C-alpha cells in the first residue's frame, strides 16, 4: 500500500474551520491474513522470502515430516510448521501454519530492547529491526511471546521477518503473499483482513463443520498485524506452539518504565545523603583534633 497520506493536507494557513478531506484517508494499518485451513504446505512462501530478502539458501533437514527445518533462523524468517493432530472423532489432520513475526501492536521485543533505534514500529503496524543500531544483547528474544527473533552469532545482530517493509513502502504486497498459489495468504488493511477472516471462520463453523473455527488476533499483545484463521481457535498451541494468550513480560513493562527510573533516583539518594551528612554533621576526624577556636575576649586582644 502506497503512502498516499504523505500528500494529504493536514494544516492550512489562515484557513477558518476544519481542513477539507480530513479523516477521509482509509485505515493505514496493514495486515497479513494466513488462512491455515487452505494452506497446502507447498513452501512457495519460504522460497519467496529467502529470495526477496536475498538470503543464501541453506541445507534443509528432512525429519520425516513436511517441515523444511526444525526452526526459523537468522536467515530463514518464514517456516511452515507442520503438525499431525488426531481429533477426538479419530480423524487425522495435517496442520500447516506459516510461522513468522506477528508484528504485534504492542511489541514485546521493542519493550525489551535497550538500544536506541534498534527496533522501530511504523504507523502501518510493521515492527522492524534496524541492525545498524542493534547491540546484540538478545533481550528482544526474551521479550517476544512468539519466540521469533533470531541471533546471528557472527554479526552479533538479531534478525526477523520485516513484513517486507521495503515492498510495502512502495505499495507492493509482501513477497510471501505474491507467491502463494492457493490464496491462503492475503494482505490489506487490518480492518479488511479482519472482515475477511471472520467471514471465513463463520463459513468454517457453519458450512464445513469446524465448530471451534476462529480468528487468531491475540488481545494480550494489543492484536497483531499477522492474523490466522484456525480450524480450532480454542487450541492454538496445536499449531506448532502458538501461544493461547501471549503477553509481554512484567520485566519489560512496569519494571522498565516505572521502577527503573525510580530505582536510579533511590540509588542516587546515597549521594544526596553523604553530601547532606558532610554539610550538616561534618567529618569524623582523628582524635585528638585541634579544638574549636575560643571566642576572643578583650584579654586576648591585648596580647596580640
Amino acid at each position, binding site marked *: 500500500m502506497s503512502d498516499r497520506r504523505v500528500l494529504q493536507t493536514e494544516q492550512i494557513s489562515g484557513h477558518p474551520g476544519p481542513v477539507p478531506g480530513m479523516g477521509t484517508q482509509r485505515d493505514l494499518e496493514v495486515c497479513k491474513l494466513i488462512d491455515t485451513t487452505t494452506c497446502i504446505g507447498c513452501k512457495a512462501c519460504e522460497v519467496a522470502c529467502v529470495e526477496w530478502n536475498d538470503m543464501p539458501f541453506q541445507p534443509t533437514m528432512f525429519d520425516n515430516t513436511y517441515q523444511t527445518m526444525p526452526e526459523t533462523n537468522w536467515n530463514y524468517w518464514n517456516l511452515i510448521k507442520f503438525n499431525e493432530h488426531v481429533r477426538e472423532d479419530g480423524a487425522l489432520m495435517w496442520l500447516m501454519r506459516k510461522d513468522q513475526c506477528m508484528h504485534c501492536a504492542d511489541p514485546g521485543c521493542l519493550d525489551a530492547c535497550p538500544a536506541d533505534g534498534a527496533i522501530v514500529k511504523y504507523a502501518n503496524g510493521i515492527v522492524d529491526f534496524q541492525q545498524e543500531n542493534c547491540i546484540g544483547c538478545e533481550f528482544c*528474544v*526474551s521479550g517476544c511471546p512468539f519466540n521469533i527473533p533470531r541471533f546471528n552469532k557472527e554479526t552479533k545482530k538479531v534478525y526477523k521477518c520485516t513484513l517486507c517493509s521495503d515492498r510495502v513502502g512502495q505499495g507492493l504486497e509482501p513477497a510471501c503473499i505474491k507467491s502463494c498459489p492457493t490464496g491462503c495468504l492475503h494482505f490489506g488493511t487490518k480492518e479488511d483482513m479482519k472482515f475477511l477472516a471472520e467471514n471465513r471462520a463463520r463459513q468454517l463453523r457453519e458450512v464445513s463443520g469446524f465448530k471451534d473455527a476462529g480468528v487468531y488476533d491475540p488481545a494480550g499483545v494489543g492484536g497483531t498485524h499477522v492474523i490466522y484463521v484456525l480450524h480450532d481457535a480454542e487450541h492454538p498451541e496445536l499449531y506448532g506452539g502458538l501461544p493461547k494468550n501471549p503477553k509481554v513480560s512484567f520485566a519489560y513493562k512496569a519494571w522498565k518504565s516505572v521502577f527503573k527510573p525510580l530505582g536510579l533516583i533511590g540509588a542516587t539518594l546515597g549521594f544526596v545523603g*553523604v553530601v547532606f*551528612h558532610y554539610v550538616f*554533621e561534618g*567529618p569524623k576526624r582523628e*582524635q*585528638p583534633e585541634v579544638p574549636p577556636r575560643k571566642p576572643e575576649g578583650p584579654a586576648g586582644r591585648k596580647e596580640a
Partner: protein
Amino acid sequence: MATSIGRIQEKEPAIFDKLGRTVVHEGELPRHSVYTRFLHWAYGICFFLALFTGFAIYLPFLFRWFAPAFGGPATTRMLHPWFGLGFVFFFGLQAINWWGPMKWTEADSRWIRHLPEFLRNADPVEPEDVGMYNGGQKAQFWEIVVGCVVYLITGIIMWAGAPTFGAMAVAVSYILHDISALVMLFGIFFHLYQSTFGQPGTIQAMTRGTVSEAWAWTHAPAWYRQMTGRDPRQALEQERQRRSARERAIEQLSRSTGPGGGKT
C-alpha cells in the same frame, strides 16, 4: 615491618612483596598489604567500568552518551560482561582474603543498632570493641558478596540468553541484576565518602597501606589494641596530655622571650 603485615594477612602470594612495598613511618600502623591494595583497585576499576557500560544499557534514555566512550553501543554491550566477570573475580579473591576479619560478631550487631548515633558523630571515637572493620563496613562487604553471586548467576543467564535458559529466566534475571546494581550503587557513595571526606586520613590505607596511630585509636580501637598491645583510650588520653603540655611549653616560651622574640 614484614612481621606486622603478617599479622593482618597471613596468606598472601609472595610475588606481591616484590611488586610493591609498604613503608610504615613513625606514628603509623600497617593496615593493608600490597596484595589487598592490588585487589581493591583491580575490582574498583572493574566496578566503575561495569557501572558505566551498564548505565548505557540500563537507561539509554539518559545515559546513551556513555556508550561512545566504550566504542559504541554494540561494543559496550560486548565489554560489559567481561568487566563484570573481572569485578566478580577480583572481589572473589578479596572475599577469600577478608573472610576471617569480616566475620560478623556481637560487636557488629551493637554497632548497627547504634548507627544513628554514629551518623550524628555523637562520640568522636568509635566504641572500644570495634576491630579492624566496623559493623557498617562488614555489612557492606557481605552485601557485595551476595551481590556478586547475584551478578554472576543472573549475568550468565542473560549472557547465554533466552535460547539457553528460557525467556522467563532472562526476564527475572534482568530485574535481579538491576536491583543488585542499584543497591551497590547506593552503597558506593557511602564507601567513597567515608574513605575520603567523611573520615580524613582513611584513603592512605588503600594507597600507601598505612594509617596513623591516631586514626587507628579513633576509628578501630580494638584493632589498635591488637596491633600495638596498648589501650586505645589510654593512648588517646596520653596524646591529649602530650599536646596540652606542648601548648603550655610554647606559651611559656613565648612569654619569656616576649613579642617578636622568635626573630632573635
